[in-house]
């Protein structure tokens, strides 16, 4: 969370009422210097070779297996990413059956009958006009999401409601988790990932702190909001993907060296293949 410092400082100055003199001077200096000369520019960015983007998911729940195929676009094009049609997509269980996924809408490949089992290895194969991309992922053991609840947290100058998740990490290192938060059915943008490097075998309480961007649909959690949390038990390469995605390419303003997230897909595509367990809990914030 510390990489959000810039944003928090901005929030701090915009909300606090009693700012020390030095803070005021800094604020005036920064606002004069930084905001007065902001302008949108056109950069001559090279047209990069187009790459395929694969988002492939298989879970232990029915009707959730899904593969999305899209392509990269140039920076100055619009943000509408059409699906890649006509690909052959299969997911096979190591030493088991191979299941084909069917294109249900352009670029979306599904099979409602395909459900994974913890501990098994799944192999993805995507064939787009003869170009083959593969990946392999182990579906980890399921760790139970024991409880979720909201708490009041004091952040800089105001008190905000934050959702807590609690679970018992099993003994032995190597458990990785991802949480997805929905507030009144809107997916909240923050990427929450966690491993057990420092919490192995313990009861874990994690507060899902988030700092919304100006254009996010969900900016705060308030009383009577309906919050749904998905807990995903993911394997190490998938953890690495989300961790590096959160740190690098999204927003792109905090890190020292912008780069692509570490993908587990072979063959030169962007994206990820995740075999994970999925558990959902919902509360109404008091």
């Amino acid at each position, binding site marked *: 969370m510390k990489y959000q410092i810039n944003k928090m400082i901005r929030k701090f100055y915009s909300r606090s009422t009693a700012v020390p003199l030095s803070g005021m001077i800094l604020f005036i200096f920064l606002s004069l210097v930084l905001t007065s000369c902001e*302008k949108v520019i056109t950069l001559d960015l090279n047209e990069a070779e187009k790459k395929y983007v694969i988002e492939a998911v298989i879970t232990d729940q029915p009707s959730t297996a899904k593969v999305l195929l899209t392509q990269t676009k140039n920076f100055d094009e619009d*943000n509408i990413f059409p699906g890649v049609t006509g690909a052959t997509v299969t997911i096979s269980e190591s030493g088991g059956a191979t299941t084909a996924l069917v294109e249900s809408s352009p670029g979306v490949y599904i099979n409602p009958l395909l459900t994974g089992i913890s501990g098994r290895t799944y192999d993805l194969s995507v064939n787009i006009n003869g170009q083959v991309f593969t990946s392999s992922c182990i579906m980890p053991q399921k760790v139970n999401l024991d409880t979720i609840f909201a708490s009041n947290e004091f952040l800089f100058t105001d008190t905000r409601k934050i959702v807590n998740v609690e679970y018992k990490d099993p003994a032995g290192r190597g458990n990785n988790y991802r949480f997805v938060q929905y507030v009144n059915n809107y997916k909240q943008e923050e990427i929450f990932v966690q491993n057990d490097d420092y919490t192995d075998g313990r009861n874990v309480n994690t507060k899902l702190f988030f700092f919304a961007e100006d254009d996010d649909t969900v900016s705060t959690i308030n009383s009577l909001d309906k919050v749904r949390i998905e807990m995903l038990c993911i394997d190490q390469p998938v953890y690495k993907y989300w961790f590096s995605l959160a740190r690098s390419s999204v927003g792109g303003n905090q890190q020292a060296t912008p780069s692509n997230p570490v993908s587990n897909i072979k063959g030169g595509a962007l994206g990820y293949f995740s075999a994970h367990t999925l558990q959902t809990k919902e509360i109404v914030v008091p």
Partner: protein
Amino acid sequence: MQNLHLVSNSTSSNPTDKWMANTNIIKPEISDQVSIGYYQDIFNKQFELSIETYYKAMQNQIDYRDGADIFANSDAIESQLLFGKGRAYGIEWLLKKKAGKLTGWLAYTLSKTEKKIAGINDDKWYNARQDRTHEIAVVGSYQLNSKWTVSATWVYYTGDAVTFPAGKYRVDNRTVFYYTERNGYRMPDYHRLDLGATWILKQKKRFSSELTFSLYNAYGRENAYTISFRDNKDDPDKTEAVQYALFRYIPSVSYNFKF
């Protein structure tokens, strides 16, 4: 040999440099340099001309690994670094006018500074952030009379080598930028004109004083300080590059005295 290390970000949105000392992991930087130069006074020693060319090979160079995050990890920075080699070469021209009412110089440097570090940029040579292909400086000073001297300085250099997104894509319903190479792009070129005038108030053996008027960035060039990338707020279907510039014109007056 150098025991202090400069680690520069390669993002255009946060141009932060960090100085590091040696540790058990960060070894002293070593460089070997050869240079050949030629100097000559010309036109009755009014002018001096020099040309120098150099090649420098560097070992134990450091840079951030891909996706390094200096804010998230306040602990060991070594885990965010990779080590390799570097090279720098170039040629410098300098023409200097030493005598007469008009003095000053004209300097031009053509150079290249690169790094090659396993794990960065597919292990290929890439530009160091500080790589400046062209660097020009024109400095002139003219003595109008015994009281007044006016001066002007113009500098120009190629923008820093930085990493820009080469494209974008969508993952998990968010726009993600796609990068192809480290420091493969350039900040806009930097140039600036400074003007100055000095008025000698008093010039005695024991005490002399003068007033200096100057104007920094006389033609108000908005030199880019940072460039960042974001979704357009009004039209989320678009992405845009935003440039922030620091100081435009800065006038100043100073009073100097010597005794």
